Structure formats: C-alpha cells, structure tokens
C-alpha cells in the first residue's frame, strides 16, 4: 500500500497524518517530514496513525530518533494505531516513550 504523509502545525502542535505502509522504501520520506516537524517551540507532536497499515523497523527507527531529539517536555502522541502497529511499537519498548490515544486530541 502506498505511503502518504500530510502535516500541519498550529499553536505549538505539529500533526503528521500517516497513511499506507511505512517500510524501508518509504522511511526516507517520513524522515524528511519528521525532521521538518521538529522545530524549536514545539510542544506536542501528534502522529495520526488511523490510516497507517504497516510500520517496519525503518519507520520505528525514525520515530525513536525524533523522540530522542525532542525536549523531554514535548509530548509525542500516537492516534488510532491499529493493533499490529501498536504491538510492533511495544516489541521494542517504545510504547513507554509515547502516549496512545484513540481520537485526535483537541
């Protein structure tokens, strides 16, 4: 499934909406968008994963890198992850570094 990412920033929150398969061939595009999103003044990074079907280690690596480069007080929120994506994140313990929610936060 083709990968697609859309982003917007408002009031210190950047939202990245991910769709499709995030694998080794698409992680570069995700990295570019993620790097652009990590800016001074960012308070919250929201990753809308409701349409993300697949997450490989290549995408996970970018997420971990982004988390490590954010200030500790910046929250990383994952929205609507499917069970398989969530289990993948849990396998490497990254679930302890992010917040899972079912719906888009206000």
């Amino acid at each position, binding site marked *: 499934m083709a990968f697609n990412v859309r982003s917007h920033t408002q009031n210190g929150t950047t939202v990245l909406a991910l769709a499709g398969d995030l694998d080794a061939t698409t992680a570069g595009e995700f990295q570019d968008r993620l790097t652009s999103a990590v800016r001074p003044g960012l308070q919250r990074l929201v990753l809308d994963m409701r349409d993300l079907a697949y997450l490989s280690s290549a995408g996970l690596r970018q997420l971990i890198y982004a988390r490590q480069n954010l200030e500790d007080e910046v929250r990383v929120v994952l929205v609507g992850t499917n069970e398989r994506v969530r289990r993948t994140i849990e396998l*490497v313990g990254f679930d302890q570094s992010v917040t899972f929610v079912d719906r888009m936060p206000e």
Partner: protein
Amino acid sequence: MQLVVPAVLGALDRVNAMVRDLAVRAALPEWDAYRLRLVTEELFTNIVRHGYRVREPRLPSIPDQHVVIEYGLTDDHVWVRLIDTADPFDPLGVPVGATACTARRETIGLDLIRRAVSTASHEYINGTNRTTVRVPRGLESAPASARHLRPGPESSRRV
C-alpha cells in the same frame, strides 16, 4: 520454493508479495502474517544496506549481488530463509537492548527480529549467510515485549 531478487531496496515489493502469498497459503492469523513480513523485511534490508552496502532504493543492482529467499510451510510452521554472499554476519548475535531507551537506534531492527519470532537461526556455510525464521501455524503466539523479555532464540553459526 525459492525467490531470487537483486540486492536493492526496490526489490522489497517482490519480497513482500512472496511473504503475503505464503501467509495466505498457510492461513496464518493476522499478527503472525504481519510479524513474518516484519522480520523478512528487516533481514532483507539488512543484507542490502549493510551486507552489500547499497543505500539507494533505485540504484541498479550490481551483477552477482542478489538475495536468495527460500521458503515453505509444513504442518507445524512457516519458514523463510534468506541467503546472501556478503561478509559473514549473524543478525541474531547482536546484543538486544532492554528498551528503546537503551537500544541503539542502529540495532532496533535486529532487536525487532528476535522479539517478533520465537525461532530463528543463522549459519555461515560455503561462503553464504543463511538466516532462517519460523512462525508456527495454527496458533497466534504472543511475542515477548520489551517489558517481558525472554532470552533470544539460539543462534547457530558455523564460520
């Protein structure tokens, strides 16, 4: 059964298609099919990027640099074996980080392999790396999470 693909990331689609077909034939539960894809992708990209050191998805393949993927199913399990002629490397021999905080970003994929499947092995025979993963059929086994780590699978290596 066997699939031979050039050692480029652009061949990942063919690898994924093979895994998808195998999972359907084996009637694997959703999570088992998913984790078989996870580990196969990780092993394949590891061979391409680090074994053969190809970093660009669309670079033309170099002659004789290819990955052979053998696969099949038995009554009990599904198996996939990736074979390459790169330098000897055991992807199961790298220490597993306790959590994502301690795991090195570079080895997160290797961590994932060992946590996603319960049976995997590596051999170096006649100048080839041969890494095999197996996923049981008929039950959806719960893999280890980082909070409930089990020892990694045995890694056999003959160098």
